[in-house]
């Protein structure tokens, strides 16, 4: 059993080999070949992950695979190894499983692109980094993966770098992420100071023995939270994700929906033992998650770009996950990572299919009625929409319900506004259903508003693109059933992840209350969808137009003005400071140096005379030196 799990250590290596093959030989391969290489590399990783899954499911114990020492400095050592437990194996399955489907989809989507092999090389490199991130047995190795996905994210956002805006978006993502990475580094330093090691398993084992709620532990928790807000696009570092949509759609689906943005959630779940003894940090996590979910959901309503809506939706949904881990329901957060990976990847790939069909059009005001023309894309997108909206019996319902219930029953949040968080999440769930209905209806429903010339070209995407859609749609429907509410039946996800994460404290409401919560969250989803139907179908958008002038709508369109605010606060002050420094450099330093340089010839003019070339002058200098020495000797003698 252990061997079966250990073999999974090869998964990142295989992905890396795929990346290297595509990077060095991709140019010489004919079109589908780099895509096939990339897909097979990730697919093999999925098979290995599946075997590991079976292995861990049977044994239950975490498997550690060591490759020796990574770093050594005095007493401080970091091992190079993987820690394969339920949590990491589940993440591996998501990464490689969804990743494989997206790779296959990209074979069709990237057809004819100049950077075809480069794309798959970078995508494979991303998968390798992401696998290292989730498999690492130490924070240091995790940080390697963490930075690796950050670099790949930047490269892939700026994939079409010839458009400066795309390159700028990549840079923005990278820079904003650096703030989070800084938090990760500080958290590591503090972890080492408190625990004396950076081995995750050791830290997990030691954490319960630490002083409950001490400042150091809270500090560690808050710093890892800072790291998570960067990578998972949470308030206040969420601004990079909407711009990240500049990358190709498969990238948006894989990195900016299914996998990388969930790294923050994974990080908090992975360090759950620390958070379990740092309740202050945990409550902050929950509040950040809920506020992000709400703000991003409202922002999603006002967007008109097919991918930007999904981007804000992703921020919002990751907010749900963060809220879940903040409530101590680590399993629920990871469960939502799992379901979200399916339906959000599906939504993005569906959006990509639409963009592909319309030849690059991304404005949903110029779409509509596509459901008839693109049956597979339309149907699968409908399933994903219903799943994310939280319609009962689809996957999103179960995971979202688990989160909402967790905030309601969480012992950690009881004193810090758990009830408020619960209601905010319920409202957010309603808004989610509303904006997703808007998204679906404006693209696939109603009448066509296509530009002239585009309408004739609309076509369903090739099978290589629609097949992953179908697989993901099936997953979006069924995957939720692995985590049915605990009061109905065994919750497999909860039981499974309980072995890898700390246990949160939860009150146990009566079954009637549980039923009420389930029905309530179902009702919220239906109300949201109904509201959407009323606004966009019954009133044919007239209500939306009337509401468009309100302050809230303006705020939504501008996504609450974070970008202008940050520009004024950081970018402008930064460039202002840079200009001041530049002025200082030019006027003071440069000028000073130039005038200083002017002194040199002056001095040189004096010294030059000594270098007359006259031997006798040199001899005189020597003679004076000798006389001086004699004088010194005489003076010393006299003084003595």
């Amino acid at each position, binding site marked *: 059993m252990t061997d079966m799990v250990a073999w999974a250590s090869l998964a990142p290596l295989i992905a890396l080999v795929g990346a290297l093959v595509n990077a060095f030989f991709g140019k010489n391969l004919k079109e589908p070949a780099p895509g096939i290489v990339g897909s097979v590399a990730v697919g093999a990783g999925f098979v290995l992950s599946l075997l590991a899954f079976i292995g861990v499911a049977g044994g239950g114990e975490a498997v550690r695979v060591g490759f020796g020492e990574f770093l050594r400095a005095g007493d401080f050592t970091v091992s190079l190894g993987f820690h394969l437990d339920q949590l990491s194996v589940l993440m591996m399955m998501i990464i490689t499983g969804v990743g494989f489907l997206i790779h296959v989809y990209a074979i069709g989507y990237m057809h004819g692109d100049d950077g075809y092999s480069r794309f798959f090389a970078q995508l494979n490199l991303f998968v390798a980094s992401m696998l290292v991130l989730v498999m690492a047995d130490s924070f240091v190795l995790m940080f390697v993966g963490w930075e690796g996905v950050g670099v790949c994210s930047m490269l892939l956002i700026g994939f079409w770098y010839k458009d400066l805006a795309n390159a700028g978006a990549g840079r923005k993502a990278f820079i904003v992420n650096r703030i989070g990475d800084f938090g990760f580094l500080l958290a590591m330093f503090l972890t080492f100071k408190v625990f004396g090691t950076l081995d995750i398993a050791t830290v997990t084992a030691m954490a319960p023995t630490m002083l409950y709620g001490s400042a150091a532990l809270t500090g560690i928790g808050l710093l890892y939270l800072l790291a998570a807000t960067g990578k998972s696009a949470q308030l206040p570092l969420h601004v990079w994700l909407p711009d990240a949509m500049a990358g190709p759609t498969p990238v948006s689906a894989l990195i900016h929906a299914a996998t990388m943005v969930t790294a923050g959630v994974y990080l908090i779940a992975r360090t759950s033992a620390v958070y379990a003894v740092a309740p202050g940090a945990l409550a902050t996590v929950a509040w950040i998650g809920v506020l992000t979910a709400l703000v991003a959901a409202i922002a999603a309503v006002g967007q008109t770009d097919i991918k930007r809506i999904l981007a804000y939706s992703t921020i919002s949904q990751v907010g749900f996950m963060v809220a879940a881990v903040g409530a101590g329901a680590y399993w629920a957060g990871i469960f939502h990572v799992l379901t979200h990976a399916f339906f959000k990847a599906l939504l993005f790939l569906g959006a990509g299919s639409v963009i592909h069909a319309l030849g690059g059009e991304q404005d949903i005001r110029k779409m509509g009625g596509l459901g008839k023309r693109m049956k597979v894309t339309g149907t699968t997108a409908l399933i994903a929409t219903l799943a994310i909206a939280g319609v009962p019996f689809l996957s999103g319902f179960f995971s979202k319900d688990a989160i909402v219930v967790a905030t309601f029953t969480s012992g950690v949040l009881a004193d810090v506004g758990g009830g408020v968080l619960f209601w905010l999440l319920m409202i957010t769930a309603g808004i989610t259903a509303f904006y997703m209905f808007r998204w679906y209806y404006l693209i696939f429903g109603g009448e066509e508003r296509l530009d002239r010339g585009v309408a004739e070209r609309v076509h369903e995407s090739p099978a290589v693109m629609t097949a992953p859609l179908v697989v993901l749609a099936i997953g979006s429907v069924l995957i939720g059933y692995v985590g049915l509410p605990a009061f109905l039946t065994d919750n497999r996800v909860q039981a499974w992840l309980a072995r890898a994460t700390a246990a949160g404290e939860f009150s146990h409401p009566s079954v009637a209350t549980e039923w009420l919560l389930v029905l309530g969250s179902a009702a919220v989803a239906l109300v949201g969808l109904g509201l959407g139907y009323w606004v966009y179908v019954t009133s044919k958008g007239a209500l939306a137009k009337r509401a468009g002038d309100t302050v809230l709508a303006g705020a939504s369109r501008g996504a609450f003005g974070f970008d202008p605010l940050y520009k004024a606060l950081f970018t402008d002050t930064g460039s202002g400071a840079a200009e001041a420094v530049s002025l200082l450099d030019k006027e003071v330093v440069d000028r000073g140096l130039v005038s200083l340089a002017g002194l040199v010839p002056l001095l040189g003019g004096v010294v030059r005379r000594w270098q007359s070339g006259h031997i*006798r002058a040199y001899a005189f200098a020597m003679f004076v030196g000798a006389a001086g020495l004699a004088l010194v000797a005489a003076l010393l003698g006299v003084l003595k």
Partner: protein
Amino acid sequence: MVGFAVLAVLLVAGGVGVVTLRQPVHAALALVGTLLALAVTYVTLQAHFLAAVQVIVYAGAIMVLFLFVIMLLNVGGERLGDRLAWLRPAAWVAAAVAAVAVVAVAVISARPLPAADVVTTTLAGGNAGSIAEVLFTDYLLAFQLVGVLLLTGVVAAVGLVQRAAPETRPQERSLAGRGAPHEPYLGVGGEGAPVSEAAGGGR
């Protein structure tokens, strides 16, 4: 003491002559006188062997070489008008300071002389045998090096002075090309003077 005073006067007078006489031949002769007086001084210091060597090697061989070169090149007195006129007073001042300083050191670190008979027996007239013993034991390496130096000096002197074969004398040819009227090293008088003028003045 009287003897020392006489010698000192002779030596200083000779030294001043070397430094001040304009004609090189005169200066060289002053130096010969100085060296001979020095040899006598060596005798008063019980260094008879060195006194002999001084007369033979210095006053004899080396000074003859000097005079030979001076006369070969027919070097005249220096022209008036020193480009480094400031150097003359400065040099005298520096020299005075140095001399005073050295004398001061000598006086400060003065040690009593050993008894006369000790000096006489120890130095034994600077007998050649004792000096040879020191040279060939304690200073063997220095002695060998001096030997090498002398050999090198001989080779260097020959190499420097030897004239290249006619077809490989670019320097001279270029001089001739510039219209030098004479073989330059023959008809030369005062140093630094134009060739023709020096030739006229020198003969």
